[in-house]
Protein backbone atom coordinates (compact mmCIF):
# COMPACT_ATOMS: atom_id res chain seq x y z
CA UNK A 1 0.00 0.00 0.00
CA UNK A 2 2.88 2.35 0.77
CA UNK A 3 3.83 1.64 -2.80
CA UNK A 4 0.54 2.88 -4.18
CA UNK A 5 0.94 6.06 -2.14
CA UNK A 6 4.40 6.73 -3.39
CA UNK A 7 3.57 6.02 -6.98
CA UNK A 8 0.54 8.30 -6.69
CA UNK A 9 2.69 11.04 -5.18
CA UNK A 10 5.25 10.71 -7.94
CA UNK A 11 2.83 11.05 -10.85
CA UNK A 12 3.53 14.21 -12.87
CA UNK A 13 0.19 15.91 -12.17
CA UNK A 14 0.57 15.65 -8.40
CA UNK A 15 4.17 16.75 -8.50
CA UNK A 16 3.06 19.86 -10.36
CA UNK A 17 0.51 20.49 -7.65
CA UNK A 18 3.37 20.45 -5.13
CA UNK A 19 5.40 22.70 -7.37
CA UNK A 20 2.60 25.28 -7.40
CA UNK A 21 2.29 25.17 -3.62
CA UNK A 22 6.04 25.49 -3.30
CA UNK A 23 6.03 28.55 -5.55
CA UNK A 24 3.75 30.32 -3.10
CA UNK A 25 5.72 29.15 -0.09
CA UNK A 26 8.96 30.37 -1.67
CA UNK A 27 7.27 33.66 -2.65
CA UNK A 28 8.02 33.12 -6.33
CA UNK A 29 5.86 35.16 -8.69
CA UNK A 30 4.98 32.11 -10.80
CA UNK A 31 1.39 32.46 -11.95
CA UNK A 32 -0.95 31.00 -14.55
CA UNK A 33 -2.91 33.85 -16.18
CA UNK A 34 -6.54 33.62 -15.08
CA UNK A 35 -8.10 33.23 -18.53
CA UNK A 36 -5.69 30.38 -19.17
CA UNK A 37 -6.60 28.66 -15.93
CA UNK A 38 -10.25 29.02 -16.87
CA UNK A 39 -9.54 27.54 -20.30
CA UNK A 40 -7.63 24.58 -18.87
CA UNK A 41 -10.60 23.90 -16.64
CA UNK A 42 -13.06 24.18 -19.55
CA UNK A 43 -10.87 21.76 -21.47
CA UNK A 44 -10.89 19.22 -18.65
CA UNK A 45 -14.68 19.40 -18.29
CA UNK A 46 -15.15 19.17 -22.05
CA UNK A 47 -12.80 16.20 -22.37
CA UNK A 48 -14.06 14.20 -19.41
CA UNK A 49 -17.68 14.89 -20.35
CA UNK A 50 -17.18 13.82 -23.93
CA UNK A 51 -15.21 10.74 -22.91
CA UNK A 52 -17.93 9.73 -20.48
CA UNK A 53 -20.60 10.23 -23.09
CA UNK A 54 -18.81 8.09 -25.64
CA UNK A 55 -18.36 5.37 -23.04
CA UNK A 56 -22.08 5.51 -22.28
CA UNK A 57 -22.86 5.20 -25.98
CA UNK A 58 -21.10 1.85 -26.23
CA UNK A 59 -22.19 0.39 -22.88
CA UNK A 60 -25.72 1.60 -22.43
CA UNK A 61 -27.77 2.00 -19.28
CA UNK A 62 -28.63 -0.99 -17.15
CA UNK A 63 -30.25 -1.26 -13.74
CA UNK A 64 -27.00 -1.01 -11.85
CA UNK A 65 -26.13 2.21 -13.63
CA UNK A 66 -29.51 3.71 -12.84
CA UNK A 67 -29.13 2.66 -9.21
CA UNK A 68 -25.64 4.20 -9.10
CA UNK A 69 -26.91 7.48 -10.45
CA UNK A 70 -29.78 7.52 -8.00
CA UNK A 71 -27.50 6.70 -5.09
CA UNK A 72 -25.11 9.46 -6.15
CA UNK A 73 -27.87 12.05 -6.07
CA UNK A 74 -29.15 10.87 -2.72
CA UNK A 75 -25.61 10.99 -1.35
CA UNK A 76 -25.28 14.56 -2.51
CA UNK A 77 -28.52 15.51 -0.76
CA UNK A 78 -27.83 13.62 2.47
CA UNK A 79 -24.30 14.81 3.17
CA UNK A 80 -25.42 18.44 3.58
CA UNK A 81 -28.04 17.38 6.14
CA UNK A 82 -25.70 15.96 8.73
CA UNK A 83 -22.99 18.48 7.98
CA UNK A 84 -25.41 21.32 8.63
CA UNK A 85 -26.84 19.74 11.75
CA UNK A 86 -23.40 19.38 13.23
CA UNK A 87 -22.31 22.91 12.40
CA UNK A 88 -25.40 25.01 12.86
CA UNK A 89 -24.93 25.88 16.51
CA UNK A 90 -21.18 26.20 16.25
CA UNK A 91 -20.70 28.80 13.50
CA UNK A 92 -22.89 31.42 11.82
CA UNK A 93 -25.82 29.67 10.27
CA UNK A 94 -25.25 31.00 6.75
CA UNK A 95 -21.71 29.63 6.85
CA UNK A 96 -22.99 26.28 8.10
CA UNK A 97 -25.40 26.08 5.16
CA UNK A 98 -22.71 27.02 2.65
CA UNK A 99 -20.28 24.46 4.05
CA UNK A 100 -22.99 21.81 3.95
CA UNK A 101 -23.59 22.56 0.26
CA UNK A 102 -19.86 22.59 -0.42
CA UNK A 103 -19.31 19.10 0.93
CA UNK A 104 -22.46 17.62 -0.55
CA UNK A 105 -21.40 18.78 -3.98
CA UNK A 106 -18.30 17.57 -5.80
CA UNK A 107 -14.97 18.68 -7.22
CA UNK A 108 -14.57 17.91 -10.90
CA UNK A 109 -10.79 18.16 -10.73
CA UNK A 110 -10.58 15.62 -7.93
CA UNK A 111 -12.73 13.33 -10.05
CA UNK A 112 -10.58 13.91 -13.12
CA UNK A 113 -7.44 13.21 -11.12
CA UNK A 114 -8.97 9.95 -9.93
CA UNK A 115 -9.88 8.92 -13.48
CA UNK A 116 -6.35 9.54 -14.64
CA UNK A 117 -5.08 7.59 -11.62
CA UNK A 118 -7.26 4.70 -12.81
CA UNK A 119 -6.21 5.08 -16.43
CA UNK A 120 -2.53 5.05 -15.54
CA UNK A 121 -3.10 2.01 -13.30
CA UNK A 122 -4.95 0.25 -16.13
CA UNK A 123 -8.22 -0.08 -14.19
CA UNK A 124 -11.39 0.47 -16.19
CA UNK A 125 -14.26 2.71 -15.15
CA UNK A 126 -17.70 3.43 -16.56
CA UNK A 127 -18.68 6.54 -18.49
CA UNK A 128 -21.82 6.82 -16.40
CA UNK A 129 -19.66 7.93 -13.47
CA UNK A 130 -19.25 11.23 -15.32
CA UNK A 131 -23.02 11.49 -15.32
CA UNK A 132 -23.00 10.67 -11.62
CA UNK A 133 -20.59 13.52 -11.03
CA UNK A 134 -22.76 15.93 -13.00
CA UNK A 135 -25.84 14.85 -11.05
CA UNK A 136 -24.09 15.44 -7.74
CA UNK A 137 -23.24 19.06 -8.40
CA UNK A 138 -26.63 20.64 -7.87
CA UNK A 139 -28.75 18.87 -5.20
CA UNK A 140 -26.45 19.93 -2.38
CA UNK A 141 -26.82 23.57 -3.37
CA UNK A 142 -30.59 23.36 -3.15
CA UNK A 143 -30.56 21.40 0.10
CA UNK A 144 -28.07 23.85 1.61
CA UNK A 145 -30.24 26.81 0.80
CA UNK A 146 -33.42 25.16 2.01
CA UNK A 147 -31.76 24.34 5.31
CA UNK A 148 -30.69 27.94 5.67
CA UNK A 149 -34.18 29.19 4.97
CA UNK A 150 -35.75 26.74 7.38
CA UNK A 151 -33.43 27.48 10.30
CA UNK A 152 -32.37 31.07 9.79
CA UNK A 153 -35.44 32.87 8.67
CA UNK A 154 -37.80 32.44 11.61
CA UNK A 155 -37.73 36.21 11.96
CA UNK A 156 -38.85 36.56 8.38
CA UNK A 157 -36.27 39.05 7.15
CA UNK A 158 -34.47 38.95 3.82
CA UNK A 159 -37.18 36.70 2.48
CA UNK A 160 -38.20 38.98 -0.34
CA UNK A 161 -35.03 38.47 -2.31
CA UNK A 162 -35.52 34.73 -2.60
CA UNK A 163 -36.50 33.31 -5.95
CA UNK A 164 -36.80 29.65 -6.78
CA UNK A 165 -36.02 30.28 -10.42
CA UNK A 166 -32.78 32.05 -9.57
CA UNK A 167 -31.86 29.24 -7.17
CA UNK A 168 -32.49 26.55 -9.74
CA UNK A 169 -30.62 28.48 -12.40
CA UNK A 170 -27.60 28.97 -10.17
CA UNK A 171 -27.71 25.36 -9.02
CA UNK A 172 -28.19 23.66 -12.35
CA UNK A 173 -27.01 26.03 -15.06
CA UNK A 174 -23.66 27.05 -13.73
CA UNK A 175 -21.24 27.16 -16.66
CA UNK A 176 -19.14 24.23 -15.52
CA UNK A 177 -22.14 21.96 -14.89
CA UNK A 178 -23.65 22.99 -18.20
CA UNK A 179 -20.46 22.24 -20.11
CA UNK A 180 -19.91 18.81 -18.59
CA UNK A 181 -23.51 17.73 -19.10
CA UNK A 182 -23.52 19.13 -22.63
CA UNK A 183 -20.29 17.41 -23.56
CA UNK A 184 -21.55 14.17 -22.07
CA UNK A 185 -24.67 14.32 -24.19
CA UNK A 186 -22.73 15.23 -27.33
CA UNK A 187 -20.28 12.40 -26.70
CA UNK A 188 -23.21 10.08 -26.22
CA UNK A 189 -24.85 11.23 -29.48
CA UNK A 190 -21.73 11.05 -31.62
CA UNK A 191 -20.30 7.93 -29.98
CA UNK A 192 -17.01 6.37 -31.12
CA UNK A 193 -17.30 8.06 -34.55
CA UNK A 194 -17.21 11.44 -32.87
CA UNK A 195 -14.41 10.34 -30.59
CA UNK A 196 -12.26 9.28 -33.52
CA UNK A 197 -12.49 12.85 -34.85
CA UNK A 198 -11.27 14.56 -31.71
CA UNK A 199 -9.46 11.90 -29.72
CA UNK A 200 -5.99 13.41 -30.19
CA UNK A 201 -7.27 16.62 -28.70
CA UNK A 202 -9.23 15.02 -25.91
CA UNK A 203 -7.20 12.00 -24.90
CA UNK A 204 -3.58 12.60 -25.82
CA UNK A 205 -3.35 16.03 -24.26
CA UNK A 206 -5.34 15.21 -21.16
CA UNK A 207 -2.56 14.45 -18.69
CA UNK A 208 -0.37 17.28 -19.88
CA UNK A 209 -3.17 19.77 -19.40
CA UNK A 210 -3.92 18.24 -16.03
CA UNK A 211 -0.31 18.91 -15.00
CA UNK A 212 -0.58 22.60 -15.82
CA UNK A 213 -3.97 22.87 -14.22
CA UNK A 214 -2.81 21.24 -10.99
CA UNK A 215 0.18 23.59 -11.00
CA UNK A 216 -2.35 26.41 -10.85
CA UNK A 217 -4.39 24.60 -8.21
CA UNK A 218 -1.27 24.24 -6.10
CA UNK A 219 -0.73 27.98 -6.31
CA UNK A 220 -4.27 28.95 -5.39
CA UNK A 221 -4.59 26.31 -2.67
CA UNK A 222 -1.39 27.49 -1.03
CA UNK A 223 -2.58 31.11 -1.12
CA UNK A 224 -5.70 29.99 0.68
CA UNK A 225 -3.62 28.37 3.42
CA UNK A 226 -2.05 31.77 3.95
CA UNK A 227 -5.56 33.25 4.15
CA UNK A 228 -6.52 30.66 6.75
CA UNK A 229 -3.53 31.65 8.87
CA UNK A 230 -4.60 35.29 8.67
CA UNK A 231 -8.09 34.53 9.92
CA UNK A 232 -6.99 32.52 12.95
CA UNK A 233 -10.21 32.62 14.99
CA UNK A 234 -11.67 30.09 17.36
CA UNK A 235 -14.11 28.85 14.75
CA UNK A 236 -11.16 28.12 12.53
CA UNK A 237 -10.13 25.05 14.45
CA UNK A 238 -13.63 23.60 13.99
CA UNK A 239 -13.45 24.37 10.29
CA UNK A 240 -10.03 22.80 9.86
CA UNK A 241 -11.09 19.68 11.71
CA UNK A 242 -14.22 19.43 9.62
CA UNK A 243 -12.22 19.86 6.41
CA UNK A 244 -10.12 16.87 7.42
CA UNK A 245 -12.86 14.67 8.87
CA UNK A 246 -15.75 15.25 6.47
CA UNK A 247 -14.03 13.82 3.38
CA UNK A 248 -13.12 10.65 5.26
CA UNK A 249 -16.61 10.30 6.72
CA UNK A 250 -18.24 10.92 3.34
CA UNK A 251 -15.83 8.48 1.73
CA UNK A 252 -17.03 5.79 4.15
CA UNK A 253 -20.60 6.49 3.17
CA UNK A 254 -19.57 6.23 -0.47
CA UNK A 255 -17.79 2.97 0.23
CA UNK A 256 -20.90 1.60 1.90
CA UNK A 257 -23.06 2.45 -1.09
CA UNK A 258 -20.47 1.12 -3.52
CA UNK A 259 -20.36 -2.24 -1.78
CA UNK A 260 -24.14 -2.35 -1.38
CA UNK A 261 -24.47 -1.80 -5.13
CA UNK A 262 -21.60 -4.18 -5.77
CA UNK A 263 -19.77 -1.73 -8.03
CA UNK A 264 -16.64 -2.60 -9.96
CA UNK A 265 -13.28 -1.49 -8.60
CA UNK A 266 -12.99 1.61 -10.80
CA UNK A 267 -16.56 2.81 -10.37
CA UNK A 268 -16.43 2.19 -6.63
CA UNK A 269 -13.33 4.32 -6.28
CA UNK A 270 -14.89 7.11 -8.33
CA UNK A 271 -18.09 7.11 -6.28
CA UNK A 272 -16.07 7.34 -3.09
CA UNK A 273 -13.97 10.16 -4.49
CA UNK A 274 -17.13 12.03 -5.46
CA UNK A 275 -18.54 11.59 -1.98
CA UNK A 276 -15.29 12.70 -0.37
CA UNK A 277 -14.68 15.73 -2.57
CA UNK A 278 -15.97 19.23 -1.95
CA UNK A 279 -16.89 21.88 -4.48
CA UNK A 280 -14.89 25.06 -4.98
CA UNK A 281 -16.30 26.36 -8.24
CA UNK A 282 -20.02 25.72 -8.69
CA UNK A 283 -21.06 26.00 -5.05
CA UNK A 284 -19.19 29.22 -4.23
CA UNK A 285 -20.49 30.79 -7.43
CA UNK A 286 -24.04 29.86 -6.49
CA UNK A 287 -23.66 30.84 -2.84
CA UNK A 288 -22.45 34.31 -3.69
CA UNK A 289 -25.71 34.92 -5.49
CA UNK A 290 -28.27 33.01 -3.47
CA UNK A 291 -26.66 33.21 -0.01
CA UNK A 292 -24.40 36.27 0.02
CA UNK A 293 -24.62 36.27 3.82
CA UNK A 294 -22.21 33.33 3.98
CA UNK A 295 -18.56 34.22 4.23
CA UNK A 296 -16.45 32.72 1.41
CA UNK A 297 -13.52 33.03 3.79
CA UNK A 298 -14.86 30.04 5.70
CA UNK A 299 -16.03 27.51 3.14
CA UNK A 300 -13.49 28.17 0.42
CA UNK A 301 -10.26 27.53 2.32
CA UNK A 302 -11.79 24.35 3.72
CA UNK A 303 -12.56 22.81 0.37
CA UNK A 304 -9.70 24.22 -1.60
CA UNK A 305 -6.75 24.33 0.75
CA UNK A 306 -7.44 21.28 2.90
CA UNK A 307 -9.95 18.83 1.45
CA UNK A 308 -8.74 19.07 -2.13
CA UNK A 309 -5.07 18.30 -1.42
CA UNK A 310 -6.05 15.69 1.15
CA UNK A 311 -8.11 13.88 -1.45
CA UNK A 312 -5.69 13.96 -4.33
CA UNK A 313 -2.54 13.29 -2.34
CA UNK A 314 -3.64 10.78 0.27
CA UNK A 315 -7.30 10.12 -0.37
CA UNK A 316 -7.26 8.49 -3.79
CA UNK A 317 -4.72 5.75 -2.95
CA UNK A 318 -6.25 5.30 0.49
CA UNK A 319 -9.77 4.89 -0.85
CA UNK A 320 -8.37 2.57 -3.48
CA UNK A 321 -6.78 0.38 -0.81
CA UNK A 322 -10.08 0.32 1.07
CA UNK A 323 -11.96 -0.67 -2.08
CA UNK A 324 -9.53 -3.50 -2.72
CA UNK A 325 -9.79 -4.62 0.87
CA UNK A 326 -13.59 -4.46 1.05
CA UNK A 327 -14.88 -5.60 -2.29
Amino acid sequence: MIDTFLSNLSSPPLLFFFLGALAVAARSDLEIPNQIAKFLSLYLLFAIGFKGGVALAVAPFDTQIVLTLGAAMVLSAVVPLYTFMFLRNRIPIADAAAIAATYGSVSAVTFVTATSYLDVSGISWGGHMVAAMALMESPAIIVGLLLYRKYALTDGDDDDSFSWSQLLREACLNGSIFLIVGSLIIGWITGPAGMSQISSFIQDLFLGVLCLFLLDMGIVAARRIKDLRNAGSKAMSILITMALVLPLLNAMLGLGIASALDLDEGDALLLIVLAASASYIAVPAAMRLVLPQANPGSYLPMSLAITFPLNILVGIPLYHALVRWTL
Partner: protein
Amino acid sequence: MKQCTRIEIVVEQSVSGQVIDLLHKVGAPGYTLIPDIRGEGDRGTRRGDELAGDSSNCLFIIACDDDTIIESLKAGLRPLLSRSGGVCLLSAAEWLRH
Protein backbone atom coordinates in the same frame (compact mmCIF):
# COMPACT_ATOMS: atom_id res chain seq x y z
CA MET B 1 -18.71 71.48 -21.84
CA LYS B 2 -21.54 70.64 -19.53
CA GLN B 3 -21.75 70.00 -15.81
CA CYS B 4 -22.55 66.43 -14.90
CA THR B 5 -22.22 63.88 -12.15
CA ARG B 6 -19.66 61.15 -12.49
CA ILE B 7 -20.91 58.00 -10.80
CA GLU B 8 -18.54 55.15 -10.08
CA ILE B 9 -19.84 51.81 -8.87
CA VAL B 10 -17.81 48.79 -7.76
CA VAL B 11 -19.76 45.57 -7.35
CA GLU B 12 -19.15 41.88 -7.58
CA GLN B 13 -18.88 40.67 -11.18
CA SER B 14 -21.78 38.27 -10.76
CA VAL B 15 -24.25 41.10 -10.12
CA SER B 16 -23.10 43.21 -13.05
CA GLY B 17 -26.10 42.04 -15.03
CA GLN B 18 -28.40 43.39 -12.33
CA VAL B 19 -26.63 46.77 -12.43
CA ILE B 20 -26.97 46.92 -16.21
CA ASP B 21 -30.68 46.13 -15.92
CA LEU B 22 -31.00 48.88 -13.34
CA LEU B 23 -29.19 51.36 -15.58
CA HIS B 24 -31.56 50.56 -18.42
CA LYS B 25 -34.57 50.85 -16.12
CA VAL B 26 -33.67 54.27 -14.75
CA GLY B 27 -32.71 55.49 -18.22
CA ALA B 28 -29.02 56.15 -17.75
CA PRO B 29 -27.55 57.72 -20.89
CA GLY B 30 -24.77 55.11 -21.11
CA TYR B 31 -22.09 53.46 -19.04
CA THR B 32 -18.54 52.21 -19.23
CA LEU B 33 -17.74 48.87 -17.62
CA ILE B 34 -14.36 47.56 -16.52
CA PRO B 35 -14.83 43.84 -15.91
CA ASP B 36 -12.78 41.33 -13.92
CA ILE B 37 -10.96 43.50 -11.47
CA ARG B 38 -9.94 42.93 -7.86
CA GLY B 39 -10.54 44.49 -4.51
CA GLU B 40 -10.76 44.18 -0.79
CA GLY B 41 -13.41 45.38 1.60
CA ASP B 42 -15.59 44.27 4.50
CA ARG B 43 -16.44 41.02 2.72
CA GLY B 44 -12.87 39.92 2.28
CA THR B 45 -10.50 39.91 -0.65
CA ARG B 46 -11.74 39.36 -4.16
CA ARG B 47 -8.78 38.13 -6.12
CA GLY B 48 -10.72 37.40 -9.26
CA ASP B 49 -9.51 33.84 -9.23
CA GLU B 50 -12.72 32.20 -10.23
CA LEU B 51 -11.31 28.70 -10.24
CA ALA B 52 -10.57 29.07 -6.61
CA GLY B 53 -14.16 30.10 -6.07
CA ASP B 54 -12.96 33.66 -5.65
CA SER B 55 -15.07 36.30 -7.22
CA SER B 56 -14.07 39.34 -9.21
CA ASN B 57 -15.34 42.86 -9.01
CA CYS B 58 -16.30 45.12 -11.85
CA LEU B 59 -16.39 48.90 -12.09
CA PHE B 60 -19.04 51.02 -13.76
CA ILE B 61 -18.51 54.64 -14.72
CA ILE B 62 -21.60 56.63 -15.58
CA ALA B 63 -21.71 60.24 -16.66
CA CYS B 64 -25.15 61.67 -16.07
CA ASP B 65 -26.58 65.17 -16.05
CA ASP B 66 -30.12 64.33 -15.05
CA ASP B 67 -30.79 64.47 -11.31
CA THR B 68 -33.94 62.38 -11.46
CA ILE B 69 -32.05 59.55 -13.07
CA ILE B 70 -29.27 59.85 -10.50
CA GLU B 71 -31.75 59.67 -7.63
CA SER B 72 -33.50 56.59 -8.95
CA LEU B 73 -30.13 54.98 -9.64
CA LYS B 74 -29.06 55.60 -6.05
CA ALA B 75 -32.32 54.23 -4.75
CA GLY B 76 -32.00 51.11 -6.90
CA LEU B 77 -28.39 50.54 -5.91
CA ARG B 78 -28.78 50.66 -2.14
CA PRO B 79 -30.41 47.23 -1.63
CA LEU B 80 -27.97 45.70 -4.10
CA LEU B 81 -24.99 47.15 -2.25
CA SER B 82 -26.25 46.07 1.12
CA ARG B 83 -26.92 42.56 -0.13
CA SER B 84 -23.72 41.88 -2.08
CA GLY B 85 -21.35 44.66 -0.99
CA GLY B 86 -19.47 47.23 -3.03
CA VAL B 87 -19.06 50.98 -3.18
CA CYS B 88 -20.62 53.84 -5.08
CA LEU B 89 -18.90 57.22 -5.37
CA LEU B 90 -20.32 60.38 -6.89
CA SER B 91 -18.44 63.49 -7.92
CA ALA B 92 -18.88 66.53 -10.11
CA ALA B 93 -17.30 66.65 -13.54
CA GLU B 94 -17.43 68.51 -16.81
CA TRP B 95 -18.50 66.59 -19.87
CA LEU B 96 -16.95 67.46 -23.21
CA ARG B 97 -19.82 67.18 -25.67
CA HIS B 98 -18.96 66.01 -29.13
